[in-house]
């Protein structure tokens, strides 16, 4: 998978094709984070093959729905349980991110895993992603934001955009 742009959450439901022996097959639902519905379906089959004995050729996808965030304006602390392949083995991880939406947090996770562990998107499996209450957060980077009177300075503001290549005076980094 290529984790392009911000990922979106899909609810994919699929089942094994009904046969004469088994006219009613159970439905399986998965919460897939993917850039679009096509990749979501593909990931669904990837996971389902590992978990159950049917695949794309012997099954069918019943529905693919994009799930929008319920409260996209509420800041949440997301705990993400994942499993990834490193160069020398596969490991489980628990990571925390602060974001407005689940998709935003998962996207942050993919980017972060790429940065910190050089893990590519195809080697990451998201096991579980849930909003976590502030008191139960374990990571200091997220806990430091749990301050009702939070304040921090913006010490060195580098302006990347705008400004000429050649300037008469040195640009300043102190401004509000």
């Amino acid at each position, binding site marked *: 998978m290529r984790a392009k742009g911000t990922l979106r959450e899909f609810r994919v439901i699929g089942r094994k094709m009904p046969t004469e022996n088994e006219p009613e097959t159970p439905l399986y639902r998965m919460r897939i984070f993917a850039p679009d519905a096509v990749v979501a379906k593909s990931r669904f089959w990837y996971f389902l093959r590992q978990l159950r004995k049917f695949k794309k050729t012997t099954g069918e996808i019943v529905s693919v729905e994009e799930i929008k965030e319920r409260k996209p*304006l*509420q*800041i949440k602390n997301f705990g993400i349980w994942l499993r990834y392949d490193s160069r020398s083995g596969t490991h489980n991880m628990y990571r925390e*991110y*602060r*974001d*407005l939406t689940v998709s935003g947090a998962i996207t942050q996770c993919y980017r972060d895993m790429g940065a910190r562990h050089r893990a590519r998107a195809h080697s990451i499996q998201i096991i579980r992603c849930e909003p976590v209450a502030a008191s139960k957060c374990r990571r200091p*980077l*997220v806990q430091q*934001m749990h301050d*009702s009177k*939070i304040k*921090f300075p*913006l010490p060195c*503001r580098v302006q*990347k*955009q705008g400004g000429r290549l050649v300037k008469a005076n040195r640009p300043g980094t102190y*401004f*509000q």
Partner: protein
Amino acid sequence: VAYLADGPEKGKIAAIVNVIDQNKVLIDGPTSGVTRQAYPIKQIHLTAMKVNFAFDAPTKIVRKELTEAKVDEKWAESSWAKRLENKAKRVAMTDFDRFKLRKAKAHRNKIIAKALNSKKKSLRKAGKL
């Protein structure tokens, strides 16, 4: 209250409602046409104006506090906003505007030069220069 210097809501002001993390804040500007959204801190310039409400206050409360504190009027009166307005005017000048500007500048400089030169003359005459 912050001025949004870049990004989709460039040029507007909004109040900071909460901090998401090191790089993003939740802003809301109901009186200035900014919907509640996450915004990168790098694209925000803080103003000296401060409005009091609890963090994560609903938009209704934010709107009430902003209108009570007359934030939009204070912003429009501030020299910062006026400077931005003048910059925008300069950029939007037509050739005719530039002509008018040139003539106005020339006229003003003539008045200054006249006053300066007459002062110089009188001082030179009095032997002070």
